[in-house]
């Protein structure tokens, strides 16, 4: 809402705050000022100039040679504008004037002719984008007077942010009410030339008629009241300067005196009005009804053809729609230059219906914006009367007969029971009945006390939308008292009943582990292209990413790609985020927290003692194992995958090569994650990029508690080690070898380790040599060589029999 400071000051003559102070005050009342503009500030040197003569420049076709009367008498000016006309007034910058942008006017010779000053366009003055010609001023002016003063530009336009509950602040009166100090009242400034006519009202609940013009409400649920005033014999033309100035100060563009009168009242009082050309209303009447079957399109006054539905409330003449009620008027009944008779509408529409209609039409107007937020039901007659006064004062004509007032449901001001004890309970500070009355009265509320700590608060019409309950009144008291004037002493509190959610702990633990391994945490939004998710957003803003993701790896790989292409050679990224999976129609998707990682480059920074090795699959397996052990503490394993995963396994993307796929399996044998080498060509990266590894793992839906460690007595007797060199066929993996060794070792075998793998000379093809170290120890005794030898012999024998593994020595 653009608020003119001068307009506010006219409504509230006692206002002492300047614009800056007022902005601060409004912020602390809940209506912060976003921006303040004072266009007049830079135009102190510009004056009103009158063009006496305008002729062609002798040496240039496109230029005119004019004489302009200014403060220093008549001077010669060369002008490039096509619209310069003798006898008219323009903003004039004489020699020595400085225009916005520090542009100083000098005496100059243009194509051989002396020019002493400049006639200005709106754009040159910083008053708009209009640069088609110089700014022609309508009305009577004193030559040489200050341009800013003559046009009332010594104003500050304040852009006030109005919250959705405060429709009443979408007017100068509303803002003035918030600015008013105790005891100060808002007064309506007099309309210059107001003839003071009043013709009375003719009232009915359905249909009212006077002087051959009628108004009828057929849909009282969507329009509870409709006022129509008939003014005959107007002369449509430009508004006088005072009216134009007011509108400009509030950021509105003057159009003509009739339309400007309605806009003035809307900006001043918050009541949207509409003027119809009565001569173009068929049957000389207004019917308020929903669009009928067959009325499928309608051209609004902006020239757009709108598609109607049967839910939309239309203002019609006897036969056809002439306006979309509360949203926008129609082309077919618009006030134009030749309009003589006017029907002025002041109506009260249902906010929800207005909102539904304007959303269905994909539009929002000054009127619909206000009706959606609620317009003062008690302010209708004053608003209409003020608009009539302005039209009569600026466009002439006469009010024809009584005003038609069809009121289907009369407004009843709500009253609210306010308990002072409740006020103290919620706000933490007690307030007396007198204090409450002092705070609420200037805001338009009427307060009655019963003396027993319970007050009755009558809500004014303009607040009847947002103040409906006791708590709404309590907020008004807090606002009027000033939030900053409440104490802020930290008191005692009771601990809550909600346990800190364990998933946050798991996330913290994983984050810490990955950061300690030199990984950077990434955050990527959940929106992905088709193929990476199966839950679609029904109203996406970005058509390229209409899904929420089922798998996180592609998003993270794109971040890895981004880094590699920017020369970040060592990329270690991880992310934790939600995977969405479709469940069934009408049901919210299933959500599973995923952990995803990507790694490539060197294992450590290079050192002068020797370059670092590059990350390989054993690094991948290491991080996967750590993640698996932390997320699934009860025995998760990372093993080669059994084969390609089906499409229903979300953490595998087609980008992984089957050959080096690792699988994370939880204690129950369910696969919960996969990782591997990213297929060459899957990422668009520079040629120097080596192998890239990635993995994705689902975190458990409920955090699995880590078993509490149980103390084991430390060994009292020495242990013993035995190394075995084994010839293992390629078909047998090392996990099978260690498993057999464990089984054969019994309870004295404490550890099985692999310390070398060798192929080549001396080893038959299709075989490899595995060096295995066995660590034996018994809790209660010192082991004897003979016993250990026997157990080792047993292991060797089982390896031979079960796996075809040969013992080399």
């Amino acid at each position, binding site marked *: 809402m653009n608020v003119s400071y001068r307009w506010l000051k006219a409504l509230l003559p006692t206002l002492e705050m300047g614009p800056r102070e007022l902005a601060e005050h409004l912020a602390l009342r809940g209506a912060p000022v976003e921006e303040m503009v004072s266009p007049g500030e830079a135009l102190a040197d510009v004056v009103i100039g009158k063009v006496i003569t305008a002729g062609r420049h002798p040496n240039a076709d496109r230029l005119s040679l004019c004489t302009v009367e200014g403060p220093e008498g008549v001077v010669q000016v060369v002008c490039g504008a096509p619209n310069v006309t003798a006898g008219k007034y323009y903003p004039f910058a004489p020699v020595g004037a400085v225009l916005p942008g520090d542009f100083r006017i000098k005496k100059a010779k243009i194509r051989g002719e002396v020019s002493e000053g400049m006639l200005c366009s709106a754009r040159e003055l910083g008053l708009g984008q209009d640069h088609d010609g110089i700014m022609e001023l309508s009305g009577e002016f004193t030559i040489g007077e200050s341009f800013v003063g003559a046009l009332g530009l010594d104003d500050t336009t304040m852009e006030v942010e109005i919250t959705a509950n405060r429709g009443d602040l979408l007017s100068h009166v509303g803002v003035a009410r918030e600015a008013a100090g105790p005891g100060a009242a808002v007064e309506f400034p007099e309309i210059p030339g107001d003839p003071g006519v009043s013709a009375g009202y003719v009232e009915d609940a359905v249909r009212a008629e006077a002087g051959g013009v009628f108004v009828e409400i057929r849909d009282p649920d969507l329009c509870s009241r409709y006022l129509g005033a008939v003014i005959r014999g107007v002369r449509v033309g430009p508004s006088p300067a005072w009216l134009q100035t007011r509108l400009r100060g509030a950021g509105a563009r003057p159009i003509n005196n009739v339309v400007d009168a309605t806009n003035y009242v809307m900006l001043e009082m918050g009541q949207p009005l509409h003027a119809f050309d009565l001569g173009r209303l068929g049957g000389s009447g207004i019917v308020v009804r929903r669009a009928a079957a067959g009325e499928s399109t309608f051209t609004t006054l902006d020239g757009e053809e709108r598609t109607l539905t049967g839910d939309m409330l239309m203002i019609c003449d006897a036969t056809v729609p002439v306006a979309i009620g509360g949203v926008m008027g129609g082309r077919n009944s618009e006030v134009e230059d030749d309009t003589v008779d006017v029907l002025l509408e002041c109506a009260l529409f249902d906010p929800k219906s207005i909102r539904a209609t304007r959303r269905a039409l994909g539009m929002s107007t000054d009127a619909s914006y206000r009706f959606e937020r609620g317009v003062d039901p008690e302010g209708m007659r004053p608003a209409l009367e003020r608009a009539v006064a302005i039209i009569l004062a600026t466009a002439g004509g006469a009010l024809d007969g009584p005003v038609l007032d069809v009121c289907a449901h009369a407004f009843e001001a709500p009253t609210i029971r306010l308990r002072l004890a409740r006020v103290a309970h919620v706000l933490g500070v007690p307030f007396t009945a007198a204090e409450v009355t002092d705070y609420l009265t200037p805001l338009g509320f009427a307060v009655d006390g019963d003396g027993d700590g319970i007050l009755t608060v009558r809500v004014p019409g303009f607040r009847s939308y947002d103040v409906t309950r006791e708590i709404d009144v309590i907020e008004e008291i807090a606002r009027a008292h000033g939030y900053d004037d409440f104490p802020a002493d930290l008191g005692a509190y009771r601990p809550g009943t909600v346990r800190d959610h364990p998933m946050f702990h798991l996330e913290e633990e994983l984050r810490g582990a990955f950061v300690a391994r030199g990984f950077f945490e990434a955050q990527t939004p959940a929106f992905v292209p088709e193929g990476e998710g199966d839950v679609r957003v*029904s109203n996406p803003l970005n058509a390229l990413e209409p899904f929420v993701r089922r798998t996180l790896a592609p998003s993270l790989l794109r971040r890895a790609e981004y880094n590699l292409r920017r020369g970040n050679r060592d990329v*270690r990224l991880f992310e934790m985020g939600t995977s969405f999976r479709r469940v069934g129609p009408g049901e919210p998707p299933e959500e599973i927290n995923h952990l995803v990682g990507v790694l490539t480059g060197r294992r450590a920074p290079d050192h002068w003692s020797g370059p670092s090795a590059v990350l390989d699959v054993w690094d991948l397996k290491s991080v996967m194992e750590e993640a698996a052990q932390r997320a699934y503490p009860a025995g998760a394993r990372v093993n080669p995958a059994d084969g390609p995963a089906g499409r229903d396994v979300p953490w595998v993307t087609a980008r992984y090569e089957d050959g080096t796929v690792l699988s994370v399996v939880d204690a129950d044998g369910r696969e919960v994650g996969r990782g591997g080498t990213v297929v060459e060509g899957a990422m668009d990266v520079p040629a120097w990029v080596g192998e890239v590894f990635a993995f994705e793992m689902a975190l458990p839906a409920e955090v699995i508690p880590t078993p509490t460690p149980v103390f084991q007595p430390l060994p009292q007797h020495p242990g013993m080690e035995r190394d075995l060199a084994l010839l293992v066929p390629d078909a047998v993996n090392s996990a099978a070898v260690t498993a057999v060794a464990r089984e054969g070792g019994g309870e004295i075998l404490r550890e099985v380790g692999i310390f070398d793998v060798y192929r080549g000379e001396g080893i038959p093809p299709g075989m490899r040599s595995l060096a295995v170290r066995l660590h034996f120890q018994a809790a209660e005794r010192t082991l004897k060589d003979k016993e250990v030898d026997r157990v080792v012999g047993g292991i060797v024998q089982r390896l031979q029999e079960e796996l075809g593994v040969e013992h080399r020595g």
Partner: protein
Amino acid sequence: MTDPNPLASLKTLEEEALGAISGATDAGEVEAIRIRFLGRKDGRISALLKGLGGLSAEERPVIGQEANRVKGVVQAALDAKEGELAGPAASQEYDLTLPARGVWRGAAHPISQAMDEIWGIFRDLGFTRARGPEADTEWYNFVALNTPLDHPAADEQDTLYLQDSVLLRSHTSPVQVRTMQTHEPPIRIIAPGWVYRRDTYDATHTPAFMQIEGLVVDEGISFVDFKATLAEFARRYWGPGTQVRFRPSFFPFTEPSAEVDVKRVVTRADGTREETDWLEIMGAGMVDPAVLENAGYDSERYTGFAFGMGPARIAMLKYGVRDLRTFFENDIRFLSQFAR
């Protein structure tokens, strides 16, 4: 010729040698001493050992052992002196100014770090953390929170829908309602997590972003407790000397509603201290009684307050990041600036 008292001679030799070594001033001198006493051919200790042949079988091992001890002592003294004279310049092999062996340093995402810092303060103020689904129903996201869909207030959060009444939550407030449905008061939680809005990417908007909301409900919680708790948070997060301001505002789920602003004192590079403008850091208010009732609480008995903030915005202010999109590029050159 046989030494009549080889033990005494050895003692004298030891003293002479150690004296000479301690007086030596350069490496050449040390080398000369080494040859004089330990030289294989004519060294005096060697010579003495050669003379052992004439000793009795009882004496020989005793003298031999003593001679070897003296030899060792002299040898060690020579080595020590040599090292001392060589000084540090000679040990380039152990140039400890060379860089250490490095390890990669990782970092949590700056928004995670900001969230962690915020959580740490609320933990100290007695809060715990709650979570809820990111895809939720209209009822939890709007209706339960006193936001009718046909009211302009619903426009403020242009929402992304998945199906008819299923949407991507536009704030983490649904977690508040779910928590109240499953727990008795006192409630003292924060709910951190992703939220979604129908926005395009620009310097200050992203369609998905992190939010932290909080909720306190108990008997006797007032506007004073609300102000006190959030002012305490703001001062702990932004530093002592921070001014906190509460401005009236509007949210359908709180009443009275407020915006919380802070004004910080920052120290410039030249050491001068300066006040910032008022910075908006969160929206908050007393929980609307309708929300308490919708969650099944008796709003006459219980009151409370709620608040919400965007850690990304707070991280921008704190770290001086100008463009929100920087957080989502995940450029390692950016992320590594937050390594600790």
